[in-house]
């Protein structure tokens, strides 16, 4: 019995110990769980936090969040990590009780839609190592309490609406021992925020700082020279701000620096040559500033430079000598400066190079055959320089090329015979050079070509008809050369021509191909300053997209096509031709005698004579008719009066009576002959007499021959006399 009670007592003690142990652990977890649940409630409906629940009948002692989504605990059951990136969280951090979560090592809430400010209470997370709130909608300023996160090695607040400045007190003050400040900071990211102000020099006290990314925010002032003390710095990104002043020379001491991004700021002065000491440098971006002086000559001393940009500055002087053997180069952008140097001597072979732009500098020399070994080159841009020499045939080996722009140089010689091998080429711009010779046959191999500009050179020979097979051409300019012969009709096959077809200022002869009618997408057509003859084909009225034409200074004749673009074009579009006609100022109007020949002259004289005689005859007949008609018109009025008089007396239309009266020889008639039967006969003799005379008058008015009828004047005089006589 005693043993049994011993065992049970032992068991009881064990249970109590275990119970106390676990209850303590779960007690800690319970306040953490409660804090998390309280936060969850404040966020509203978040389906992703479904697993965050308190079981129904549990006592608060058994509540553990360690199996909840995004929650990680240590062996003691403390919450050490909250990882909820990109889960659609909305709401704020306002109700996240950090003081209940002081075991947190990692808080990752990036790529959500959290708003609100960063609570100052976050400073109690004294163990926190990793804090990522990037890509949210957080606003307000960075709380000063962040300085208490002395263990934090990574802070990322990028892509938020955070404002304000970086307070210098966030960083250690340099005195030993550092009690506060982000002493452990390795990665500090504030990209694309609204934070501004200067970077405090105190940042130089973050001895372990490796990545500092402040791109595209609103920082201004100088680049702190204390950055030169950060010997662990590997990535320094300050692009897209308003930094001004010089690059501190001691940046050159950062032997671990691989990425230096200073793009798009207001930096000025000389770039320190010390940058050549950066033995680990792979990416250097100096473009879009106001730098002057020379480029650091030893920039690729470490032999690792991959990406180098210095475009859009005022750099002058030579191409850095270290670039010649810089075989790792992948992208180089030095355009829009005043760099001098020699293209063939200052550059070497770059098997990884995909893009190089040296345009608008003062580079001399020529394109050396070595460029043919840059097999991965997709863009070769050296426009607007002082290049001479020839285009080497080796260029055609670069079958990845999409863009060649060597315009505005002094390149001479001929186009490479095998140019057609560049089947991926989209843009070939050789405008404004001194190229001679012919366009090589095989040009149809440029099957991807969209833009071809060979204008302003000394090219000669014919325009090869094979150009009609470059079916993707959108823009074709061959103007200002010495091309001869006729315009190949195959150009009409280039139905993709959109922007421009310019063959102006050449020696082209023959006619304009009617096949141009197929170019229904073409907007601008310039054939001026050639020796084209014949007419402008009427079929060109099919070119419904044209907004601009120029046919001036040719030998063209004939009518313009009848669409409005041709008819309403500027007179300058047609000046100095042979005999174009149309409704345009400066051109004569077209008539049916458009094709004048010798026989036409005689024919027209005959027509004139016949027409004159006919007109004379017609006129005389017409005049006679007119005279006759006038007389007849007046006397027919008299006739009508007579008929009317009869009607009044008889009460009806006289009709047959008139013809009876005319046939009878009697000159006199009496009223009794034609009374109105509805009226009683007149009683007095005088009335009968009067009425009879009216009848006589009426009769004379209705005589057949108009000339024997009286005039109305006579009629009215007679009626007045009769009236007077009757009184």
């Amino acid at each position, binding site marked *: 019995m005693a043993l049994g009670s011993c065992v049970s007592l032992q068991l009881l003690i064990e249970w109590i110990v275990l119970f106390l142990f676990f209850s303590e652990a779960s007690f800690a977890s319970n306040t953490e769980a409660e804090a998390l649940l309280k936060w969850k409630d404040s966020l509203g409906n978040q389906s992703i936090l479904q697993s965050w629940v308190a079981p129904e009948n549990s006592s608060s002692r058994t509540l553990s969040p360690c199996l909840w989504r995004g929650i990680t605990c240590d062996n003691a059951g403390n919450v050490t990590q909250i990882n909820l990136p990109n889960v659609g969280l909305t709401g704020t951090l306002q109700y996240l009780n950090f003081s209940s979560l002081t075991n947190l090592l990692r808080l990752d809430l990036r790529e959500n839609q959290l708003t609100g400010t960063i609570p100052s209470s976050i400073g109690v997370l004294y163990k926190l190592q990793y804090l990522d709130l990037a890509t949210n909608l957080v606003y307000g300023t960075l709380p000063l309490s962040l300085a208490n996160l002395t263990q934090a090695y990574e802070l990322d607040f990028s892509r938020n609406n955070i404002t304000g400045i970086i307070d210098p007190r966030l960083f250690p003050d340099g005195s030993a021992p550092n009690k506060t400040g982000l002493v452990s900071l390795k990665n500090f990211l504030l990209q694309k925020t*609204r934070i501004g102000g200067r970077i405090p020099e105190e940042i130089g006290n973050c001895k372990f700082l490796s990545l500092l990314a402040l791109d595209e925010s609103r920082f201004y002032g100088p680049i702190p020279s204390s950055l030169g003390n950060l010997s662990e710095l590997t990535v320094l990104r300050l692009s897209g701000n308003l930094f001004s002043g010089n690059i501190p020379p001691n940046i050159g001491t950062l032997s671990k620096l691989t990425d230096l991004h200073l793009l798009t700021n207001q930096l000025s002065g000389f770039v320190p040559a010390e940058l050549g000491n950066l033995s680990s440098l792979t990416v250097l971006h100096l473009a879009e500033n106001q730098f002057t002086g020379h480029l650091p000559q030893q920039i690729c001393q470490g032999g690792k430079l991959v990406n180098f940009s210095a475009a859009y500055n005022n750099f002058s002087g030579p191409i850095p000598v270290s670039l010649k053997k810089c075989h790792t180069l992948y992208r180089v952008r030095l355009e829009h400066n005043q760099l001098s140097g020699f293209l063939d001597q200052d550059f070497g072979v770059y098997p990884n190079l995909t893009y190089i732009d040296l345009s608008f500098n003062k580079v001399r020399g020529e394109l050396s055959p070595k460029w043919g070994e840059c097999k991965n080159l997709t863009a070769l841009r050296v426009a607007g320089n002082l290049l001479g020499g020839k285009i080497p045939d080796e260029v055609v080996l670069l079958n990845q090329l999409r863009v060649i722009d060597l315009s505005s140089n002094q390149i001479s010689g001929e186009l490479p015979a095998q140019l057609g091998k560049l089947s991926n080429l989209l843009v070939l711009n050789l405008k404004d050079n001194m190229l001679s010779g012919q366009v090589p046959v095989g040009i149809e191999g440029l099957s991807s070509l969209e833009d071809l500009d060979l204008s302003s050179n000394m090219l000669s020979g014919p325009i090869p008809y094979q150009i009609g097979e470059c079916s993707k051409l*959108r823009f074709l300019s061959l103007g200002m050369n010495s091309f001869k012969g006729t315009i190949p009709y195959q150009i009409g096959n280039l139905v993709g021509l959109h922007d421009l077809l310019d063959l102006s200022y050449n020696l082209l002869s023959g006619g304009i191909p009617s096949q141009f009618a197929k170019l229904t997408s073409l907007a601008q057509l310039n054939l001026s300053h050639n020796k084209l003859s014949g007419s402008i084909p009427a079929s060109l009225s099919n070119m*419904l997209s044209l*907004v601009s034409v120029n046919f001036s200074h040719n030998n063209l004749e004939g009518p313009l096509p009848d669409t409005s673009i041709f008819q309403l074009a500027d007179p300058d579009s047609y000046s100095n031709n042979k005999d174009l006609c149309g409704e345009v100022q400066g051109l004569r109007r077209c008539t049916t005698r458009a094709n004048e020949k010798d026989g036409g002259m005689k024919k027209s004289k005959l027509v004139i004579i016949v027409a004159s005689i006919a007109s004379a005859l017609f006129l005389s007949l017409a005049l006679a008719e007119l005279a006759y008609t006038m007389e007849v018109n007046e006397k027919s009025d008299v006739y009508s009066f007579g008929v009317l008089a009869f009607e009044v007396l008889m009460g009806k239309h006289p009709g047959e009576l008139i013809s009876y009266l005319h046939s009878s020889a009697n000159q006199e008639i009496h009223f009794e002959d034609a009374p109105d039967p509805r009226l009683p006969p007149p009683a007095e003799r005088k009335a009968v007499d009067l009425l009879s005379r009216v009848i006589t008058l009426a009769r004379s008015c209705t005589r057949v021959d108009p000339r024997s009828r009286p005039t109305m004047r006579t009629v009215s005089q007679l009626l007045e006399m009769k009236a007077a006589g009757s009184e």
Partner: protein
Amino acid sequence: MTKKPNTPPLLPFFLALALAISSVNPLKKWLIFYLLSVFLSLLLSISPSLSSNSEGNALHALRSRLVDPTNALQSWDPALVNPCTWFHVVCDSNSHVTRLDLGNSNISGTLGPELGQLKHLKYLELYRNDIGGKIPKELGNLKNLVSMDMYGNKFEGEIPKSFAKLKSLIFLRLNNNKLSGSIPRELTTLKELKVFDVSNNDLCGTIPVDGPFASFPMESFVNNRLNGPELKGLVPYDFGC
């Protein structure tokens, strides 16, 4: 080529503030002061767009909607600071995209609203591909657009009325698609429009006759279900549609 942020119009604001404070009784003064300070903070928080990477983002979003079997968009690297070195893209001297040339590129997929963010775009050339879906109405935001060529695709749905906002447009070619609905009357306000082609679609209703439409040839409208020119005052213009 540095970028200067836009400064908000602070002078008139302060003038208004001074006037308000001087002319109102003390009780209302505080209310006005509070409201004005809220307004000020809003004003200061309006951010100018510092980089043209937003245009790169828009093009990158476009790329994700398109299917590109010939890798025409291979050079479209979003890690680059702007899209101006991408092939088929042309920028102006301020690094804003002015041309998008993807005609004849074997591309399919659809377009999205993000194209409307390319505020400086002048030439939108997407012709002769296999792009389907609707034409996004956001394209009406491209107020600098001179040429829009979407012909020879599989676009469906209606011609957006928002195209009436494209006040600089000279060329609008939407022919050879599967567009339906009527030709929006609002397009007659586009004074610069010189070339307009909607032939070979499934459009219905009548053809506008006002403004630039007076000069477009009949070939621009053939092969649709259009009911001839609009009869003004006699017949409602979109009957049968």
